[in-house]
């Protein structure tokens, strides 16, 4: 008898198909440009530009997949890694949605909420970018120029976003919050160039070990 597929199984299947389709679409851009103008760069030219960034970003991508996977759910993962801007937008958006809806990330409800949040965020970002790029282009520098009235706000998007998001976690779990934030801030203070992709697993490990220790000591 054929085993019935669960919703998660179906999402893995559709997500995989979409990922492959989007990979081909994405690859289609340089292919189409090179074909249209009949200009094909050599392997060596592409490699010399690619390897310095690949050395840094490929391992980071793998770490991000592992770190975000329990938080974003199945649908949220496939969609986030297609639409990008995960750490600065899709992830906080999904976490905020789960917190407000009061659902857990590894539950069926969490799966639904994260997918809705990431999909909505992706649609809004795409529309905003398209509107600005196609219609409001002359206005963009007025908003984002370092001398614009609004410029300080754009520099502080991350603290505003993660402060609002973290507040409820910090107040509910203040005992286990202090240690990881303290150590991470210390690490960045010592070496400011440590990438967020490296800080995340370090932070998660420190935080989990701290929570385990507090649990063993009966402080939770």
């Amino acid at each position, binding site marked *: 008898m054929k085993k019935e597929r669960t*919703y998660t199984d179906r999402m893995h299947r*559709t997500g995989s198909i979409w*990922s492959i389709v989007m*990979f081909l679409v994405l*690859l289609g*851009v*340089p292919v189409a440009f090179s074909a249209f*103008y009949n200009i*094909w*760069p050599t392997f060596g*030219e*592409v490699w*010399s*530009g690619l390897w310095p*960034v690949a050395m840094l970003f490929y391992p980071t991508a793998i770490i991000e997949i592992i770190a975000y*996977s*329990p*938080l974003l759910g199945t*649908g949220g993962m496939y969609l986030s*890694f297609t*639409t*990008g801007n*995960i750490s600065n937008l899709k*992830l906080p*958006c999904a976490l905020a*949605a789960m917190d*407000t*809806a009061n659902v857990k990330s590894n539950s069926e409800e969490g799966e*639904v909420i994260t*997918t*809705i949040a*990431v*999909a*909505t*965020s992706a649609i*809004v*970002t*795409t529309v*905003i*970018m398209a509107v*600005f*790029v196609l219609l409001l282009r002359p206005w963009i520098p007025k908003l984002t120029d370092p001398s614009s009235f609004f410029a*300080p706000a754009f*520099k*502080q998007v*991350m*603290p*505003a976003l*993660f*402060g*609002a998001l*973290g*507040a*409820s976690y910090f107040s*509910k779990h203040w005992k*286990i919050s202090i240690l*990881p*934030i303290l150590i*991470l801030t210390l690490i960045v203070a010592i070496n400011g160039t440590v990438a*967020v992709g490296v800080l995340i697993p370090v932070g998660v490990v420190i935080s989990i070990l701290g929570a385990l220790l507090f649990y063993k000591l009966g402080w939770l």
Partner: protein
Amino acid sequence: MDFREDTFMLILGLIVIAFILAQSIFFLVKAIRRGKEIGMAGSVMKNTVVQSILFTITPALAIVATVVALAPALGIILPWIRLSVIGNITQETAAATAAIEAVSSGNLATPITDKHVFSVVAWVMTLASSLPLVVLPLCLKRLQKGMNKAMSKAGDAKLTDSLAAAAFIGLIGAFIARALAGKGTATQLADGTVQMNYDGAGILSVATLLVAIVVMLLLSKLAEKKNIGWLQNFAMPISMFVAMGAAIALFHLLPESLATFEFRAPVVS
């Protein structure tokens, strides 16, 4: 016409955007249908949509700023495509810079006029970012199964709850630490002067963080005490907007030395 922004590039951009919107709408519809199947309230899903819209507006404008930053060299269309699919500010800027420097003497501030250089940049930016699209279909299912097993083995509900919260906090902590401490880098210009790469990590970043936390806690408390459902749902985006408003106000009200103060002296690169 500038080849970087001609009709051909625009058509390429529109095709990519159409696929992105199609995938997002497809997943949104699937999730809403699933929510109804498992008996979730329509109002919860509707609130998630509205909250996510509000939450997205400002970071999306910050992403538009990245497109603008890359536009002088690459035109507007390629950065638009790259920041719409997988991309993010750090990755795209680094990939574009590495590609330009690999095949020319230009940089991100000067327009690329050579189609060959532009094609190398397009290839490098695409290949640098597309790894997850290949890796996810191969490993995500197994990875999530393994993680669920590990979580269910932990047993004690209080412990699993605390471990899940600890993972969130560790992750959020990484971003907060970065926002608070910054990078503290600077660039030595050709004339020997040192130009600081201001990344906003100073008095303003701490103030913004604190305002966001305090406003969020106050609004949550108020919503809970007075039983205001809509406020509970929108406390997060409102706190974010208030905190960013506070950043603007403080920047313009504080003396310049305080408003632009950063914690660490930059390291000359």
